[in-house]
């Protein structure tokens, strides 16, 4: 089990050849749109979905009549027929949902790209809308009191009775072991959230814009679930975001410079669970991210060193650090050291990370704000623009079946 991962030897023999991959270079993200990000939208998720989708369609220079595909999460609460009936999409030919929470973000784009590459649809909108801050709070345990008497799934029955109910604590279980095995100290971890907060200061849309944080602030902030503290956690957000995917051929005639999809990948390795894969040989890594990265770089035909800028899905800062290891930007156990001092991951560093502030400091739109930022880097319109960004990498949620994209100019 997971022998390939343990030995770092990927065997792509099961996968179709790169030559038969119709997504590569033939598809592109041509429109991006989002609502305001806030802590209390005061609006329905359906309202926000419509606004974000309309913004993305306008951005692409298309009309709603052009749209014939919809992609989103199974967690999405807006109903597809009701959304179609609100947007007035006349002939929707393709719709799809993907489970695994934030692991689905880049997979949405991947599946949309497969649809346009095969003529199943012409223009697919991928979207996500959530009132995570003011509405139902997935990340809190107290929401279960008085509404459930037993664990909501069979699987959670092995965790919930012991008080282990939240993603933060599930991730903490990996984190404690990772810190133990590699001798990582809290002060090493702090640089990652600090740099992301710096990026948010330049992004007026970020929730933590105008709320700077120093490394000392990080060290002094409240411990929530040891080993994770307040500033290790993503920011619960109300908002919606959407992107439009079409073929590279059609993209030529549209309003914006296309962000071509060089590679897209999804992965769920053996013994995968939703952030509780505790029965794998080692729990200090993220095998799903490693497998995804192997496939992503295989299809793209580039190596980690070629990546100019990356948006890592970071529900918790440790998730970002361990992804650096699994994506091949550094060795196992060296993610925190890679970020120490922050210079390497700042916008002028060797691997600029989460240039909009990421999920920790911009917003938590389930990874969609990261995809939008990856596109902005290709267009040259980020508030923390990386000079001459040619290859822009973005990942989906770690610890669950995940996904990733490499975009190119």
């Amino acid at each position: 089990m997971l022998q390939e991962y343990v030995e770092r030897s990927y065997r792509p023999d099961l996968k179709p050849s790169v030559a038969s991959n119709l997504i590569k270079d033939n598809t592109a993200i041509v429109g991006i749109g989002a609502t305001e990000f806030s802590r209390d939208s005061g609006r329905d998720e359906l309202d926000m979905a419509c606004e974000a989708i309309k913004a993305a369609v306008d951005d692409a220079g298309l009309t709603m009549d052009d749209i014939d595909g919809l992609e989103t999460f199974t967690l999405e609460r807006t109903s597809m027929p009701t959304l179609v009936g609100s947007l007035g999409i006349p002939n929707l030919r393709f719709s799809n949902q993907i489970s695994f929470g934030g692991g689905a973000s880049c997979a949405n784009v991947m599946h949309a790209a497969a649809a346009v590459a095969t003529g199943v649809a012409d223009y697919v909108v991928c979207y996500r809308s959530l009132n995570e801050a003011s509405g139902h709070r997935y990340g809190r345990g107290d929401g279960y009191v008085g509404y459930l008497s037993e664990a909501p799934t069979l699987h959670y029955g092995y965790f919930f009775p012991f008080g282990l109910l939240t993603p933060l604590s599930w991730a903490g279980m990996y984190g404690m072991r990772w810190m133990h095995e590699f001798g990582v100290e809290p002060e090493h971890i702090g640089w990652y959230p600090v740099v992301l907060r710096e990026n948010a200061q330049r992004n007026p849309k970020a929730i933590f814009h105008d709320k700077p944080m120093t490394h000392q602030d990080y060290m002094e902030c409240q411990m929530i679930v040891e080993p994770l503290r307040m500033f290790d956690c993503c920011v619960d957000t109300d908002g919606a975001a959407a992107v439009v995917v079409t073929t590279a051929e059609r993209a030529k005639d549209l309003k914006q410079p296309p962000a071509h999809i060089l590679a897209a990948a999804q992965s769920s390795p053996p013994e995968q669970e939703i952030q509780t894969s505790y029965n794998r040989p080692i729990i200090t890594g993220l095998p799903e991210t490693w497998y995804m990265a192997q496939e992503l770089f295989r299809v793209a035909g580039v190596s980690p060193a070629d990546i100019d800028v990356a948006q890592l899905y970071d529900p918790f800062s440790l998730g970002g650090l361990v992804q650096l290891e699994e994506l091949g930007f550094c060795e196992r156990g060296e993610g925190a050291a890679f970020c120490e001092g922050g210079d390497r991951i700042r916008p002028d560093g060797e691997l600029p990370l989460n240039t909009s502030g990421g999920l920790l400091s911009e917003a938590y739109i389930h990874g969609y704000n990261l995809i939008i930022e990856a596109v902005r880097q290709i267009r040259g319109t980020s508030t923390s623009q990386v000079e001459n960004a040619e290859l822009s990498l973005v990942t989906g949620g770690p610890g669950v079946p995940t996904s990733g994209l490499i975009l190119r100019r």
Partner: protein
Amino acid sequence: MEYVPGIPILKPSIDADNKPFWDAVANHELVLQKCRACDVYHQPPRPMCPECKSMDTLEWVQSSGRGQIYSYVNFTTDRMAYPAMKVPYAVVLIELDEGVRLVSNMIDIEPDEIEIGMPVEVVFDDISEDLTLYKFKKRAA
């Protein structure tokens, strides 16, 4: 760890596949699912052995109940804690001698005394008439 009176613990969700496990716990026994053909333990339990694809070689065997702490988290504030448990409380990941890992709680130890690698053995905690949980306590190495 201490419970807050009046707030029920979320009980396990049980079906035909995992019922033998929870029935055993109610009888103060810890059992694990094992494929007798492959000699492999499976946690969580499943209806088919992923190694040999057999549905009738799976059986429930007694666990040693002994292992060590593989990892843990410590709930230090109410923010993310389940309100039935008084903070601070710790949740541990135990690696049993059989190689299988289970989430659980420790008894007779303060959260800040918990360490990765600590040898432990299983105990059973009758929480209420219809809920028994397996927990662990420190043992001599």
